């Protein structure tokens, strides 16, 4: 299998799915040039009708994706940085998420939203936010957070074929991360977590860019005989709670590592599920390793202090295993 990076995986998924379905099209700011690689070359393959640069009007073009989907097409809508979703929140949360339900099941909304999230080194508060928690309590959306190129390709292809609105979050720091990715029709199903490493002493649920960080820590702790099971949920909605719970049943310890914030974050969401359904398995408090509850600061030492790192992940694991 060829080694490709995160960005190339996105490009492959987009190209293959647009090939597959002529009613699929791409729109967003600067998708034609594809400066950062994800959409590069698609204009040559699919032409200006299906690859469209939008004005800087997030509510307008996100809403246009909603209308285009309801009218029978399959839009792929790019929103550069996930924090720009805030400019289009009504169209995502009041429209895309609710229209199928409000219409009694008449509306189909096959929309795939793509956006970059996370701290990537000095992008500051308005370009570094981990935004998926804000969508967790908006029923009607599916939330996807791939941790590597293979999952990115397989999950993005699944997203594009899904008939409900899906948001695929791409961590801005993973762009050059390489791994082997199957060519062609490779799909990763939603709601199926990946056990990235099996262990018996503690379960660490890690999301997105935190997966590779956590695996490094697990590696290190293994040498000391601390055996950590690392689970990547891959999709937050739908969530594969079974895999998480049966892991906790085995390890009796749970830690959630997420780049989002502590209050109201994805880590709290998963922790609460474990505390409700897996309480009897637990021998220790459920720890969360998350960003501090501050806007992400600009200066590198402050940014580093704000988001989870290997040291904090390691300390949390040691604490619950103590």
């Amino acid at each position, binding site marked *: 299998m060829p080694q490709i990076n995160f960005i190339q995986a996105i490009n492959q998924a987009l190209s293959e799915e647009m090939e597959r379905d002529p*009613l699929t*099209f791409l729109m967003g700011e600067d998708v034609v040039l594809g400066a950062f690689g994800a959409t590069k070359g698609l204009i040559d393959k699919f032409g200006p*009708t*299906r690859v*469209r640069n*939008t*004005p800087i*009007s997030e*509510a*307008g*073009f*996100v*809403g*246009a*994706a*909603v*209308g*285009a*989907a*309801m*009218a*029978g*097409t399959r*839009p792929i809508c790019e929103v550069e940085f996930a924090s720009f979703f805030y400019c289009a929140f*009504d*169209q995502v949360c*009041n*429209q895309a998420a609710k*229209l*199928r*339900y*409000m*219409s*009694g*099941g*008449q*509306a*189909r*909304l*096959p929309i795939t939203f793509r956006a970059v999230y996370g701290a990537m080194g000095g992008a500051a508060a308005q370009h570094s936010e981990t935004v998926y928690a804000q969508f967790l309590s908006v*029923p*009607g959306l*599916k939330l996807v957070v791939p941790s590597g190129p293979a999952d990115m390709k397989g999950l993005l292809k699944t997203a594009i074929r*899904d*008939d*409900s609105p899906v948001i695929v979050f791409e961590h801005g720091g993973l762009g050059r991360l390489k791994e082997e990715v199957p060519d062609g029709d490779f799909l990763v199903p939603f709601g199926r977590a990946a056990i990235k490493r099996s262990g018996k002493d503690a379960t660490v649920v890690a999301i997105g860019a935190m997966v590779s960080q956590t695996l490094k820590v697990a590696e290190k702790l293994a040498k000391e005989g601390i055996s950590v099971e690392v689970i990547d949920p891959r999709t937050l909605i739908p969530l594969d709670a079974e895999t998480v719970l049966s892991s906790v049943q085995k390890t009796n310890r749970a830690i959630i590592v997420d780049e989002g914030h502590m209050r109201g974050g994805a880590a709290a969401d998963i922790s609460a599920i474990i505390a409700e359904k897996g309480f009897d398995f637990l021998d220790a408090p459920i720890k969360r390793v998350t960003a501090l509850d501050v806007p992400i600061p600009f200066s590198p030492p402050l940014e580093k202090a704000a988001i989870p790192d290997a040291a904090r992940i390691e300390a949390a694991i040691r604490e619950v295993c103590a």
Partner: protein
Amino acid sequence: MDIGKEVLLEMYRSMQRIRQFETRIRDLAVANEIPGFVHVSIGEEASATGVCVALRKTDRITSTHRGHGHLIAKGGRIDLMFAEIFGKRSGYCKGKGGSMHIVDFSLGILGANGIVGAGLPIATGSALASVIAGLNDVTACFFGDGASNEGTFHESLNLAAVWKLPVVFVCENNGFGEFTPMRTVTSVKDIAVRAQAHGIPGHIVDGNDVLEVYQYASEAAARARAGEGPTLLECKTYRWEGHVVGEQAFLGAGAYRAESEIEEWKKKCPILRFEKFAAESGGKISGAELERIVAEAHKEVEEGVAFARSSALPDPAEVTDDVFA
């Protein structure tokens, strides 16, 4: 423009169906037979009708919180509408939507909407879908004067203009947004002027003259279908009833507009106006024909109410259906 008799009668039928439906809904709401918020469009029948009669069955519309008239004009079934507004399982949305969220995909009705201004990007996207799919359907987008102050209005006009999308933007300017007079919160007297910010045609239309609305809408739809892009129509009209049914109960009469103003506009009733036109049509349209239409609409409405009343409420177990496709 010479309008055929069938079309003229279709207009009258549409306006009668709307007027009688809205009047009945208002009374049912006042009698507390209906849950939730109900916004009726009595006095505004001509804009909904003139636009929708100018459309094809395969064309699409987006509507608003005050959407009953748009849906009926596009062919919506009155019985299914009543059932929905009563919250019954037999309603358009299985009781999940209610007055502000009625949808009929089979008729190209993409839906009423509870969020002011939200329909504009959706209509724009619906028009985009026509281009992507290579169909020449047109989408008409209804919205109010208040909605024209939402950013989505301009974002949508800009996008539709740049991409020359087949959409007709129809502003129903009834002079108020809730209880606030339009002129106190709007930078221009005529919403149509705002088309200039996007280099597209903008027309002021007598929204109580169904024939004039029909003409402008026909031209705008033809223009859109020909790939020449969007048009903005501003239909000047007035709402006779409160913003929301029942407001008199807590506001009292004359709280934000003079009774005399309402009376003035009632004299401009779009239905009376059409009847006058018919009477002067030199026998082209007979009073008997109009009376039959009135009676048919009445029957349809009463049967609709009976259907809704006799229909069952949804089973609570259905609450978790229809979230995802």
